[in-house]
């Protein structure tokens, strides 16, 4: 399946923002936010060197965060990416990763050093654990940015 062009802006695609629309022009007043939001997505989901957190695992994590956050459009996007990468691996490590992802997404105040040790025991390096956490944190950001932009688009369409 062909990949979308790297220059596409994912948030505008997900929300359905037309080029040249009022919302597109509003976002253009904040070019660093637009650029580094897309840039964060690209380096977290499709890094040139994924290290010890595979491209499949990265898509799996992002899909789960979007789903737990209740965002249909981003859930579809990340599930499609996961399918393109061969689907979930269904191994024991996947369960360890998903338990961690669910905690960081919905119960972040309950995190403990022992949870980091469990990821270490599953073979993850410091870099892999930081990348995993960055993906959860990024999609949590992206969901809320997408929701707010969609409200502005909807409010202006009346």
């Amino acid at each position, binding site marked *: 399946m062909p990949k979308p062009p790297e220059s596409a802006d994912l948030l505008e695609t997900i929300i359905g923002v037309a080029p040249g629309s009022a919302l597109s022009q509003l976002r253009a007043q904040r070019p660093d936010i637009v650029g580094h939001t897309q840039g964060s997505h690209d380096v977290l989901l499709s890094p040139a060197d994924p290290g010890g957190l595979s491209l499949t695992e990265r898509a799996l994590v992002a899909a789960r965060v979007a789903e737990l956050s209740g965002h249909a459009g981003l859930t579809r996007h990340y599930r499609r990416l996961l399918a393109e990468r061969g689907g979930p691996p269904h191994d024991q490590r996947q369960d360890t990763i998903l338990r961690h992802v669910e905690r960081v997404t919905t119960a*972040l105040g309950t995190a403990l050093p022992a949870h980091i040790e469990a990821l270490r025991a599953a073979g993850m390096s410091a870099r892999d654990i930081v990348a995993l956490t960055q993906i959860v*944190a990024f999609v949590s950001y992206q969901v809320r940015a997408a929701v707010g932009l969609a409200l502005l688009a909807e409010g202006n369409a009346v």
Partner: protein
Amino acid sequence: MNTRRFTLEAVDWAPWLPPVTLESATPAQRAALDNSPQANSAYFRTLANDVDSLAERSPLFHAVMYVPRGLKRAERELATVVVSIINGCVYCSSVHARRFVELTKQPEIIRALYEQGVDTPLEPRLRAIVDYAAKLTREPAAMTVADLAPLRAVGMDDLEIHDLTNAVAMFANANRLMQTLGEPVLPEGDA
């Protein structure tokens, strides 16, 4: 939520993973750290373990919090304090509550939020900002266009609402990194 732990004093942060040291940092890690708010903090040195994501996140954070025009800086700081209280991030709330007080000289607003929670009585513009920040943090999927009405009623334009949304979203991000890769270290006698 243990509101007594929130403070206007400076809080330290202890990582649960080994941070990159400035002596051992690669040129790319050093560049990403130099573009972060504090190159030598344990937090940013921990994030430098995955250098490419830090190199994107630091300029994103800077743009969300400090880009000129639009929502006033103090109001962005207030929104991030509200998100951090709801998520329980003692470190983030301390840093950004102190920035809010530096800008506004109104520590009583922070004390009311800390002691009485985010539903404490506030003047209408701050009430609208706090309510939007709280709902977008807790229930992003339940937001509707009606949630913009209180912001419009106090005179906020699209750019201000856009900036508020991004400040709230950025702290959904910051709190998750800060609270799950390490822990706050409170000042002596304040634990």
